């Protein structure tokens, strides 16, 4: 692992305020029966064989792509604090540490999701290889067309 303090070039940070109390958000995040219903892109199904929500516990999730391809995701939970925080280490490729935090905001819940990739190289490789989901395809085509039309920089 590269020894650098600057992680900006290999991380993703997302946040969203969900219109549900923290207990419900926690429930849908931590129960395999729920998570299988929302994890993974549109058109994918998920099989969760293990989800042992305790420090050192394993999480095995296989995403089944619309093309019949399986994507194995093996992780180890590093931190689990009820209604507050989940940290897991994704030990399949790409290696990353994800930190999900939950904060109560009245009847709503602010969820923040931070993913730190082991290396910039893996991060870029995954981003590059990532299948463009429908809907984004159009955007990419639009952008490509636009880039093609931009005159070369002086």
């Amino acid at each position, binding site marked *: 692992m590269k020894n650098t303090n600057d992680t900006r070039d290999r991380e993703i940070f997302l946040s969203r305020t969900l219109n549900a109390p923290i207990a419900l958000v926690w429930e849908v995040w931590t129960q395999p029966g729920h998570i299988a219903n929302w994890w*993974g892109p549109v058109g994918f199904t998920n099989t969760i064989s293990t989800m042992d929500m305790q420090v050192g516990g394993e999480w095995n999730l296989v995403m089944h792509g619309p093309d019949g391809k399986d994507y194995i995701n093996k992780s180890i939970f590093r931190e689990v604090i009820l209604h507050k925080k989940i940290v897991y280490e994704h030990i399949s490729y790409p290696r990353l540490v994800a930190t999900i935090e939950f904060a109560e905001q009245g009847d709503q819940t602010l969820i923040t999701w931070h993913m730190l990739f082991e290396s910039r190289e893996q991060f870029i490789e995954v981003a590059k290889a990532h299948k463009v989901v429908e809907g984004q395809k159009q955007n990419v085509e639009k952008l490509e067309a636009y880039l093609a039309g931009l005159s070369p920089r002086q």
Partner: protein
Amino acid sequence: MKARRDVFQAIADPTRREIINMIAPQSLNVNTIAEKFDMSRQAVSLHIQILIDCGLIVVKQQGRDRFCEAKLDQLSEVSIWVDQYRQHWESKLDNLEKYIEQLKKQRDEKHK
């Protein structure tokens, strides 16, 4: 839901594409840009603000003028991949949001 700011959004609009084309060769002052368009100054300012939020423009104050400079590195291939990948994770949050709504509805009905 929080608004997303990325290069796709930046170039999705024809006015914004035109603004980028205008300032790509040289920095221009906000008023000069606004005069070129058949719309209110506020509307043009909003487009400029979106381009700033998307990281495609930086504004530099020079005396009383505000100059817009294009930062086209954001349109590089790598940032496009990263943006796409980020959207993949954003869509996971979309799914979570939808699923929770659905679940709430189901549970409300059971209580009736």
